């Protein structure tokens, strides 16, 4: 329902892959450190301090993390770039305004109406959500579709989401907002092309 590791859209998919890659890398590094730690307890022969400083501090402490981190950073930046809301044809624009404790959604293609608690989008098309708030800070998060983005007073933030297939996805507000926070949830319904047109014409229930 809310799982980031069960992605249903390209953004969530990219990030889930990123997670699995990082988990694998981190496990290897963790194992390496633990092995080194255990080996410290065996008998060993003497060496000189200069050599040790070179091996431990410069080699393992400086060069090794620099290399790993540079690679990870590059990967992260490329992924981040791909998730940006870039201009393109075919993009659907909607608005999401948070207020304690519900969301109101508006549609650029159907300016005459808004929906409360449920956001309708077309499946298979990128959607830009303009996230705003009427009171305190909230965060718009549909874990199976994309990462979260905050709704900050006085600002409009744009989040790109996309659902691969038609269906209903759960979303939550992910910035603590007081007593109503537990139940501050919403739904995203992704429609196939026909239903989407119907929705825009106002005849979808």
């Amino acid at each position: 329902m809310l799982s980031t590791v069960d992605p249903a859209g390209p953004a969530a998919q990219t990030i889930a892959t990123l997670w699995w890659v990082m988990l694998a890398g981190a496990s290897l590094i963790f194992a390496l450190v633990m092995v080194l730690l255990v080996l410290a307890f065996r008998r060993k022969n003497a060496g000189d301090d200069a050599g040790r400083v070179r091996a431990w501090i410069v080699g393992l402490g400086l060069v090794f993390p620099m290399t790993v981190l540079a690679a990870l950073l590059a990967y992260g930046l490329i992924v981040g770039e791909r998730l940006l809301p870039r201009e393109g044809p075919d993009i659907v624009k909607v608005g999401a305004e948070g207020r304690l404790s519900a969301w109101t959604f508006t549609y650029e293609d159907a300016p005459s109406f808004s929906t409360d608690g449920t956001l309708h989008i077309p499946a298979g098309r990128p959607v830009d959500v303009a996230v705003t708030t009427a009171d305190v800070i909230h965060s718009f998060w549909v874990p199976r579709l994309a990462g979260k983005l905050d709704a900050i007073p006085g600002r409009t933030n744009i989040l790109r989401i996309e659902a691969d297939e038609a269906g209903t996805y759960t979303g939550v507000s992910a910035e603590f907002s007081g007593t109503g926070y537990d139940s501050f949830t919403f739904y995203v319904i992704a429609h196939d092309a026909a239903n989407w047109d119907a929705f825009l014409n106002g005849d979808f229930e």
Partner: protein
Amino acid sequence: MNALGRHRKLTAIWASEPGFKGWFSTVNHTDLGRMFLATAFFFFFIGGLLAMLIRAQLATPHSAFAGPDIYNQIFTMHGTIMMFLFAIPTFEGLAVYLLPKMLGTRDLAFPRLTAYGFWCYAFGGSMMLVSMVFGIAPDGGWFMYPPLSGAIHSPGINTDFWLIGITFVEISAIAAAVEITVSILKYRAPGMSLDKMPIFAWYALITALMILTGFPPLILGSILLEVERAFGFPFFQAELGGDSLLWQHLFWLFGHPEVYIIFLPAAGVISTVLPVMCRTPLLGYGWIVAAALALAFLSFGLWVHHMFTTGIPHMGLAFFSAASTLVAVPTGMQIFAWIGTMWKGRPELHLPMLHLLGFFFTFVIGGLTGVMVAVVPFDWQAHDTAFITAHLHYVLFGGFVFPIFAGIYYWMPHFTGRKRFFYLGEFAFALVFIGFHVTFLAMHWVGLLGQRRRISTYAPEDGWTAINLISSVGSFVLAIGIAMILIDVFLHALTASRGRRNPWRAGTLEWAMITPAPAYNFASLPHVTDRNPLTIEPDLAVQLAKGEGYLGTPRNTWRETLTVEVASGKPDMHVIYPANTRLPILMSAVTGIFFLSLLLKFYWTVPVAVVGVAILAWKWVWSIGRQDDMDTVPVGQDIHLPNFAMTDRPPGWWGSVFLLTANATLFGSLLFGFAFLWTVAPGWPPPDWFPPSVSALALGIIGAGLGPIAMRYATQKNRNGGTPLASLALTLAGAVLVAVACAAMMVHTPAPTRHAYAATLFVLGSYGLFHAALGILMVCFLIARVRCGFTSSARRAEFPIVRLWIDYLSVVSVLILVVAHLPGLMG
């Protein structure tokens, strides 16, 4: 005089009053260090109880244990207590207790300040506890984001408790940091140059400097938010030119360094304990110091990684992501230096070592997940979920609690002079280790399954039930383990048999004394020639007790020590400390009245408390110093030193330098906030601007120029044997002019409740006015001292101190006036 006679005489001079009454008047660092630690662990216990309540609540879905109102208070107070009332004070307590002993001296630089800091912590912490007992505790999460924490959405007193109580407690952090910095730089045994300092002192120095530059943004943020709540100045309200993101910047500008302020002392403990456990010196001392310094610098450049989801521009994200991953490098360097040390030596599995292994296992995982969340896209998913809760506990528990437990067990024989006799500690360690990982490992996963942090309950359909139940069971195992450690420590203190001196065969100076430590630490001060003095001279303790070091002959009733030049460790001043006094507890009580009045909105008692603090501070400073000149004092080994009253750089000057460092950081944060609002906040330009005035600006600048010049004249006059009174009067006039200019600025500022622009100008003006008043007070004090014969051409130490503050006043007031007047004058 034989060793016993010397011990008796010194004890008579240094001892606190007997019995519990002594607690209120002691200024001795050994007592206060213990009091800090005991209080901090009391709060750890309370914070732990709250953690148990959290886990009880989350153990099952649809929990009816506590409603959200109460639950929000519980987790907010858990986080707040652990961070502000446990972790930081534990560092302070450990440093206060250990540093003079490790550095081979008799006390910290400002004993009364230690006591004042302790009482501010105790009173401020009590305030927080009271709020909890009455069910009106803070409930906005430990980072208190506005607008949720603003007056509209949190009208109750809960948030005020946080803002005011924590600011009160922060006084103790700043006091301890000034104290620790000056002590490490100046109060060391002769011969201990910087490169011969015990590694713990390096870590403590770096941590203290980080507190001085890391806490002021939070203090400023708290002041601004409280002023917004109480008087409606809209610093964080977007519709009126404020910006809620300003709070986030100020908070995390503090909050991220805070994490390293917590980790670095623990790393200092590791660097001290680990080599002893491995029977070998630390590998790469210089590298480790460099890594710790690098960590400190870097940590001020990555606060934005807590704000990756706020819609910061992409370039900014990339920069802060890079900086955040980079910080893993110096951390890794230290980890590998420690493992290298273990390879070099022969590790022995004593109890402290077990906790250190617990540290490695836990902290490495925390570090790796830390790197993960530094990668922006991943953070967009993980942010504000249980994944973060898990990560932060791996870092804080792994990076702080395990090392501190190692340290407690390592120094326990020093605190009590006894040795452990049970295996309770080993068993407790196993429970803590297993309990911790059962509690938190799977919590990463439930976060990825979408469980947000700070929710008070969830539904069975969410699919999180099993993990939460396991986690809660684990937390109770953990709690039992921690309780056993506390019991172990208690039993140890009460019943264990006497142990021998230096049971770990450590090399640092704190073991060169009888244990439990005598009030005066060392009967005579050592001459240090090595990083591990006890390794090269195992008999050192006996030699010092026999009076073979410096200051081995007690004089009068003086609590004597000496200071050294910062870099070389060459002796340079003779110091007589103040003795037991109730002034610190009294002054912190009056400080408490100030904060309580603000909290309860009894505004008419605020000025009373301010005057009270001023009077006590006057008394405080008045009581040191002499009315006659003093010859240089023989300190042993044919060295004669001037008393600090007869120098140009007395301890008070050093203290002022670092206090002003913190102060300047606060002022800098305020200017940053102003610039941030002006350029980034949505609701600008303001409806009306400040009416600039060339004459007001000129008046202020003349005053700001006059003060420092006249003060220099006064110093010169006094040095040459003349009377400085006329120049001091001119200095006073300068400060008064500045006060008038700042007051005029506040009067002409447009209504501060209407726009953040005016609100900030008003605060800037009051900052200037406050410092002008402070300057006036100080110059008056100096005039009174001159007239009462406390100064002479030799006893000149107070002039440079006042000069420093007058100079600071000039710099900030010119900046303030220019910021207010210039934009309008330029058109």
